[in-house]
Every structure is written in C-alpha cells, then in structure tokens.
C-alpha cells in the first residue's frame, strides 16, 4: 500500500510535475509527507534556478487581457517578479545557517536522520528574512513600475512613459528621481528594522 502510494507520488512529479501533482491532490499529500515534499523540492529547484531567464513582463499583456486594465495585473506582475527572489533568498540564507538543510534530503538521510531534533536548530534566523524582504521589495517595485511603463492608465511608471514619449526630460527625470527616493526610503526602513533585530539578538 505504502509502496503503491510512493509510486503514485513519483509519477506525479515525473509527469510534468507540479501542475499534475496539484491537480491530483498531490500538494496536500506533499504537505503531509516529508519524502514527497523533498521530491517536490527537487522538481521545483530547476524552475527556481532558471526563473529570471524569461522576463516576467512578457506575461503582462496576458494579465491585462485576463484581469483588465486595473491595479490587479500590476499587483500580479509585482508578485510574480518578487516571489521567486524571496523563496530563493530564504532557502539560501536558511541553508547557510542550517547546514543539514543545505545538504538536502539525501544528505540528511545519509546521516541517519530526518528533520533536526533541536528546536533552536529548526528556528529560522531573522537575517535571512530581512535579506529576502529587501530583494522582494526591489523586485516588487521594479515589476509595478515596469508594468505601468508598458501599459497603464495611471501611476508613476505611466507618467514617466508619457514624459518619455513627449521628450519632456525635466518631468521624466524628476519622476525618476522620486522613484529613486521611494526605493531608497523603503530600503532604509528595512535596514533600520534589520539593525533593530540584530541588536535585539545581541542583547538576548
């Protein structure tokens, strides 16, 4: 019975993977079973590694066609741009603090163990989260501004695009300066938060 289930899980991954797995309820099974989650992770890894080789903006016209010319396609574009960076950064930084996690499931199995037993070992450190947040912030801002630049009815990207097409350099650079200030300010807020977290860790 167990062997049959494992074969079914493996078939989920092999047959084009995630989509088929999700459709057949594989995701719920994957959440429940660590071995299946490890296989799912190995199936998704190449996708994450090569995600940014195709610009997400190519899907923006499709998103506009599906969701209409509103805020929704811009938000989806921002999320599509930022989520993989967030996932990769979380995985990498947690792996640095968690050697057995970085070695992957096979490495952990070879050492005769499953998930680490110590709670402090399992606890994700604060620094990986803040680094991932900074990446997500940059990618989300780029996604939204670029989406507005391509096709939108409002927003700073739209205004920059309008000024660019009208050869209005002063407006264009003024708006770009403002976007730069927004990005710097948002990053400064995250740096301050990261510094507070680090200081709290040193104190405790």
């Amino acid at each position, binding site marked *: 019975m167990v062997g049959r289930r494992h074969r079914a899980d493996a078939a989920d991954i092999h047959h084009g993977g995630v989509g088929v797995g999700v459709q057949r309820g594989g995701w719920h099974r994957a959440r429940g079973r660590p071995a299946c989650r490890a296989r799912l992770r190995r199936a998704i890894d190449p996708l994450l590694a090569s995600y940014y080789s195709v610009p997400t903006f190519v899907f923006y016209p499709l998103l506009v066609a599906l969701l209409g010319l509103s805020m929704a396609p811009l938000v989806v574009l921002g999320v599509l741009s930022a989520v993989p960076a967030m996932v990769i950064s979380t995985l990498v930084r947690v792996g640095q603090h968690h050697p057995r996690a970085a070695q992957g499931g096979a490495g952990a199995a070879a050492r005769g163990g499953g998930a680490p037993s110590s709670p402090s070992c399992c606890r994700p450190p604060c620094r990986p989260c803040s680094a991932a947040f900074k990446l997500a912030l940059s990618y989300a801002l780029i996604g939204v501004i670029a989406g507005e630049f391509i096709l939108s009815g409002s*927003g700073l990207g739209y205004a920059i695009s309008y000024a660019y097409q009208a050869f209005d350099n002063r407006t264009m*650079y003024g708006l770009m300066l403002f976007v730069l200030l927004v990005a710097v300010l948002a990053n400064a807020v995250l740096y301050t938060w990261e510094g507070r977290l*680090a200081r709290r860790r040193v104190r405790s």
Partner: protein
Amino acid sequence: MSAAVSRSIGRRGGNDPRYAGLLVVVLLLWQAVGSWTEGMAITGPLTTFAYAGRLVLTAAFWGQVWATLAAFLLAFVLSAVCGLLLGLGARGAAASPAT
C-alpha cells in the same frame, strides 16, 4: 561583540563617509553629462531637483504616486508572505529525508 555589531550596523546604515563621497561623485558626473549634452539627453541634477520640488506641489502628481504605492505595497506584502511561506516550506522539505 556588541560594539562591533553596532559599528557594523551603523556603517551599513549609511554613516560611512565613503557613501557621501560616492554620492558627490555621482552628482558631479550627472552634472557634467547634463552640461555636455546641454539638457537634451539628460537634465542636470540642479534642474531636476528644482523641477521635482515644484512637481510634488501638484495634486496630479500625488494621484500618480498613490496609484503606484498602492499596487507596490500590495504586491510587496503578498510576495513577502507567499515567498516566506514557500521558502520555509521548501526548507522543511530539504531537511526531511528522501526515500
């Protein structure tokens, strides 16, 4: 150790004088290119700052800012939550044994 961490945080927070030097160099380069192209390709920093100062006083500008910030904040929060959950979920997968 605490002092070292505080120094490191302070330096990364922008208190390092090298950042100010880099900023001055960038502004000088920007002004040089602006003067060289006579504002045709790129307007100089002084003109840009002055114009941006006037721009922020207009109501239309804040309408555009609000549209962008709303989409950006929503995208950031959604991607942070989804990315963190997926990343930590995949970390659990990596830490688990493979059969």
